[in-house]
């Protein structure tokens, strides 16, 4: 299991469009990807859950990758978050 923390810089937080992109990015990896933040824990491959977290700018998001290719998943998702959120 591997994890990292990321603080959201996008002023709108994880809103609809980036949530969709994030789910797509997570779904590209075989391992389980869990997001923790704003007192909630959700499956990163499920868009309703990701959107319903309501994570806002300045809040910290913990991304946990567990299983096959977890190191690669962490690296890719961290790059994705920096780029988009």
């Amino acid at each position, binding site marked *: 299991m591997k994890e990292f923390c990321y603080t959201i*810089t996008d*002023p*709108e*937080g994880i*809103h*609809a*469009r980036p*949530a*969709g992109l994030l*789910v*797509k990015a997570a779904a590209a990896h075989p391992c389980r990807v869990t997001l923790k933040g704003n007192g909630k824990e959700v*499956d990163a*491959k*499920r*868009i*309703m*859950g990701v*959107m*319903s977290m*309501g994570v*806002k700018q300045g809040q910290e998001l913990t991304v946990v990758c567990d299983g096959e290719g977890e190191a690669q998943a962490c690296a890719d998702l961290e790059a994705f978050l*920096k*780029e988009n959120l």
Partner: protein
Amino acid sequence: MRLQGKSVFGGIAMGKLAVYEKKERTVKREKREDADAEMQRFYEAKEEAKRQLGVLYEKALKEVGEANAAIFDVHQMMLDDQDYEESIEHIIREQKVNAEYAVAQTGDNFSEIFAAMDDDYMRMRAADVKDISDRVIAVLQGGKDKGFAGGEPVILLAEDLAPSETVQLDKEKVLSFVTKFGSTNSHTAILARTMNIPALIGIDFPKDCEGAFGIVDGFEGALYIDPDEETIALYEKKKQKEEERRALLQELKGKENVTKDGTRVELFANIGSVADVGAALQNDAGGIGLFRSEFLYIGAEDYPSEEQQFQAYRTVAQNMAGKKVVIRTLDIGADKKADYFGLDPEENPALGFRAIRICLQRPQILKTQLRAIFRAACYGNISVMYPMITSLREVERIKEIVEEVKEELLKDGLPFGEVEQGIMIETPAAVFMSAELAKEVDFFSIGTNDLTQYLLACDRQNPNLADVCDPYHPAVLRAIEMTVKNAHAGGAWVGICGELGGDVRMTETFLRMGVDELSVSPPRILEVRDAIRRIDLKG
């Protein structure tokens, strides 16, 4: 009756009012023993709903661009969401009920989760969940795609409209739409603007106005119900003028800004707020040649924050989708000011403490603005220009500040994009220094209003001087010519963003001088395009 709301998009519409009621799909709870068969019905309906969304996505992509079409892509993903699907399956299997009921129930549950959140943006997602669920139910019930049954064209009144409803509006049948809820930044509002339908929000219309005659004034944000003869006559005239303008637009939209002999020129729009982007796009602007940033400062209680500015600049950059957006930094002074600046009254405000002069004495104001501009540049094609430049020294100081800003952004880990740097040429000093200045910047933008006032030493606010303050004075034209020549020699492109740029009597003169870009108010774009296309520089 006149109701005041807020305009989402300009235009005049006159016609019968129709109140759109969301077809509350009456979903009956029915016992179904064969859960597998119900699941199969759900899967098939879901695939059909996704197909419909795919069509809508393509339609929106063509009409309003990727950023605005993305919502339909997200809708498709929501339909594929496993939590959503599991909830439906659970209800079908546990309660042994029909798929329609399971979808309706699940849609309600999920939308309640979003509706309960303390965030406007997320609350809007509640409408999205309802929207996708309704779509699946419509397919299950064998109904046709939701649409507006048409007879004669109407002004459509609704509580609120989902994005999929707006994009499906049959424009032949809808003259305008007016909603009670919604915001100027909602998907619906953005779609409406780019789709060119006059629209109002915040109108609390009476329920019983169905079938009455109405007028939508998308410029004033007003709806008239059963107006008197005088009002009707007034709006008949306004509407005719608007139609003439639109006819011109239809003819010239999509055409190039090219003269008969093949000389091309950029034709951009001047805007003064985020909401003006709609008008710029509607009039087919090739970019924004002057985005006045004063609207963020004037009328505010305090200096606008970096975030506020960032949001405004980013929205404009995104909506212009890769087209150039030239943001002019703060151009405020003793004549147009905000109290919190604490500026002393001046004898000669036009010659006083204003624009870049304030920014260089109080660099924090400029830094905040530059941070927002550079960050927003990640989302589009942004340039920045500085007003009231008189010397090389000012440009050098600005460049130092720009470097500091970039370093600070790097240190803060905030992403930023490439930003072209330019200056306004509006003082005689800048004209005379244009050869040297051109080597320091990427572009010039000539502000003919101030340039005229400073060259001819006449206050443009003074009505007694209207004859003296002549923008066609040979001195003004020679100054422009000199600026263009020096810009090109120094490797900078040059545009005109003052009122003279939109004066079709001057277009040929400017093209002969070699001006690269004209930036004019949105309603003037197509007239200038028309003028450009009639010019033959070799003739």
